[in-house]
C-alpha cells in the first residue's frame, strides 16, 4: 500500500535534470504551474557541468520538524510510512517563527510559501515518481530508523 511508503531519491546518478518531478508535484498537488510551490526541487551543483541534487523531505519516522511547531494541529507525523502532513487551514507562518523550517536539517526540504503563508512539504503521494523518466525516485517501506 502506497501510504505506508516514503519517497526516496534512490538513484540520483540517473537524474538528467528535466524538472518533470518538480512540475508534476506542483501540477497535481498544488494545481499550479510552478517551481516554487513544488515540494521537490532539482538543483545543479556547479551548473550543468557539475551534478544534480534533489531537494525533498526525507520522510522521517520521528520528524524533528513536528514537536517544535507552536500551533496545535498544524503539522503532524504520518501514522504510517514516515514523513509529515501539514494542515493548511491551521498552519499560519505569520503566527509562528517557522520553527519547522529551522528544525529540519535539510535546507529546503520544508519551506514557507509567502502567498499561502503555509509550510510546503512532501506529502509522500508518489506522483513525482511516476513522472521521473529515468527512475531516480522510488517509494519504499522505511527501513532506516530516522
Amino acid at each position, binding site marked *: 500500500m502506497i501510504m505506508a511508503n516514503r519517497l526516496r531519491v534512490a538513484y540520483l546518478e540517473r537524474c*538528467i535534470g528535466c524538472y518533470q518531478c518538480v512540475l508534476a508535484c506542483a501540477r497535481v498537488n498544488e494545481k*499550479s*504551474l*510552478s517551481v516554487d510551490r513544488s515540494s521537490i526541487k532539482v538543483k*545543479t551543483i556547479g*551548473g*550543468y557541468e557539475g551534478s544534480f541534487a534533489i531537494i525533498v523531505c526525507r520522510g522521517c519516522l520521528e520528524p524533528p520538524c513536528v514537536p517544535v511547531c507552536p500551533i496545535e494541529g498544524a503539522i503532524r507525523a504520518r501514522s504510517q510510512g514516515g514523513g509529515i502532513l501539514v494542515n493548511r487551514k491551521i498552519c499560519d507562518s505569520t503566527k509562528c517563527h517557522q520553527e519547522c523550517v529551522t528544525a529540519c536539517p535539510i535546507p529546503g526540504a520544508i519551506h514557507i510559501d509567502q*502567498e499561502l503563508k503555509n509550510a510546503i512539504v512532501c506529502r509522500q503521494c508518489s506522483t513525482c515518481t511516476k513522472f521521473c*523518466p529515468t527512475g531516480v525516485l522510488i517509494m519504499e517501506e522505511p527501513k532506516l530508523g530516522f
Partner: protein
Amino acid sequence: MSSIPQDILEINLTTQEVQRYSRPELFEKWIGGLGVAINLLNEHVPPNADSLGPENAVIFAIGSLNTFFPIISKTVVTFKSPLTGDLGESYAGGRLSLAMRFSGLGAIIIKGTAEKSSYITIVDDQVEIKRAGPLAYMYTTTLGRVLRELIPVGPGRRSSIRIGPASENLVKYGNVVVDSFRHFGRLGCGTVLGAKKIKAIVISGEKDLSLEELMPDRRVYLKTYQTIWDSCVKTDVMKKYHVLGTAQNILPLNELNALPTRNFMKGRFEHAIDISGEKFAEAYLGRRVACNTCPVGCIHVAILRERYGVDSPADIHSIAVPYDHEPIGMLGSTLELGNGIQVLKLIEQSEKFGIDAITVGVILGWLAEAYEKGIINDSDTNAQPIRFGHLDDFISVIKNIANRDPNIKDLYWLAGEGLNALVERYSDGKHFAVCFNNNPPAAYSTGPYNVIGHIIGGRHSHLDNAGYSYDQKTIGKTVEPDEAISKLCKEEEWRNILNSLIVCLFARNLYTPSLVSECLGNLGILKTERELLNLGLEIQKIRLKTKFQFGYQLQRIRDRLPRRIYEMPTGHGILSENSIKKLLDAYEDMLRTRYELKI
C-alpha cells in the same frame, strides 16, 4: 489571465530606461514565440538599421505552451543578423524559457548600446543594468561559474546567458551560451549583444500560475499531459535522441556518402567510426542532461581529460564538453580530425570563445583547402600552418579569429567576417566556399533538398524545412520541382507554429497539428488545425517580408552558389546545376504566388 505571459520587458541600453508593459492582442493573435518575436522585430528595427548599431534589437520570446507540456522547452531570439544582413532567428533550450515563464515575461526586447561592457539581471520585477568590469572578455565557461555565485537565487530557477570574446570582438558568428551546453548558435546573435556591450543576462522568477484560473478543465489537461509523457518515455518516438543523441547520425550519413569530409570534397570519412555517436558513448560520454520539461534528455556531455604537464601523470584535469552531430561533423570530418578527443578539444575551444561551431568549422575547412592549394600562404597566416587533420593548427586559428584585432584587416579579421569576405579578397577560393547567404550549411550532404532548403529557408538553416530529411525519403525517386518546393515550404510554415509554442524540434513528430490544437484547447486557446496552418503561412509571409526589407536578394545568393555543391558527393549522387536551377525557379514562383512578394 492567459497561459501566454503577455508582458514585455523593454530595455533601452542607451538611455538606461526599462519599461514593462502588456500587449495581450499581440500574444493572442500570434500565439507567442516566433509569431510575436518576428512582429516585434518589425516594429523595433528599421529596415536599414546597422546590425551592429544601436537601432538593432535583440528580442527573446517564449510561446504559449512553454512549461505546460513535455519538451516545450525552447526560447526564440530575433535580431538583424550581422552575418547575412537579414533575418536573424535562433532557438535555445536549457532553463531560459522556464525562467522567463516564472518571471511572467512573454518577451524581452534589448535595444540601444551600453556605454561600457555591462550585464543585466532580471529577478522577478527587478531589472538592473550593471557594469561588467572584469567580466569582459571572460571565457563563456568561466563566466558561467562566476554568474552562479554572483546572482544566487532559489534552487533551479535561474537561467544565465552570456557571450564570449569572439562576440566582443564582433566576429560575425559569435554565439550566445545558454546555461551550460545550449546555445543561440547561429547568425551572430552573440555578436549583436557584443556590439551592444551586453556580456550576460541572468533571469529568475518565482511566479505561480494557478491552473484552475488558467484553464477550462484541469483534469483534461492532466490527461493530455499524461498521454504526451507516455509517448515520450514509453514508446520509441524519442529513443534515438536519448540513447546516442544526434551523434547517432554520423555513421548512417557516412554510409550514404553524405558526411561532409575534407571541406565537402568527400562524403565519406575513413575515420567516421572513431567520431561516431557509438564511439563517443562508449569512450567519452560522461553524462546526459535535459532541458527544462524534457523527459528525453538529448544533451550528451563528454568528459575530456586533458594533460597539462608532461612530467607527471598527475598533471591532468577534466572538463565537461557537450557534443552533437553538427559540431562533430563540422569540426571532425570536415577538417579530417578522426579522433574523438581532437573533436572534443575543438568543440571546447569554440565554446570558450563563444563562436558558432558549424560556421567556424566550415571556415576552417575553407582555410585548410586554400592553404593546401597555395591560395593563402604563410605570409597571410602569420606563419601559422592550417592543415587538414592537424588539431593544433585549428586550435590556434580559432583563437586568432576570436581575438582578432579590429585595426588590422588581415586573414583572421576577414575569417571573422565570414566566407564571403574571404573570397572577396582571395577569389581563387570562391568555388569551394560552401555557404548560402554567408551562412554555412550543417553537416548533411544528403542531396538537392538539403542545398535548396538552406538557400530558401528563412534563416538559411537545415532546421527551417528539413531538406536533409526529405532527401533521405526521396532517394531513388523522381519528384517534380513544384512538388518538392511546395513540400519544403509547407514544412517550414508548420515549423513556424512549433516555433511559436515553442516545441523542441526533436519532438516534431509527436506534436502533430491535431495534438497542438488539443494542447492549446486545454489552455483555453481555441485554434483549429486549419487556423494553425493559416497562421503558419502568415508568419512565413512576415519572415519573408522582413528578409526582403532588410535587403535579402535571392538572385544574389543564386549568383554566388559555390561550384563545390555540384562536385561534392551526396546521398543523391552528384547534383546537377540544372536540377538546382529548376528548383529555385519553382521557388521564385512560390514567392510570387503563395507569399505574394514582388520579386
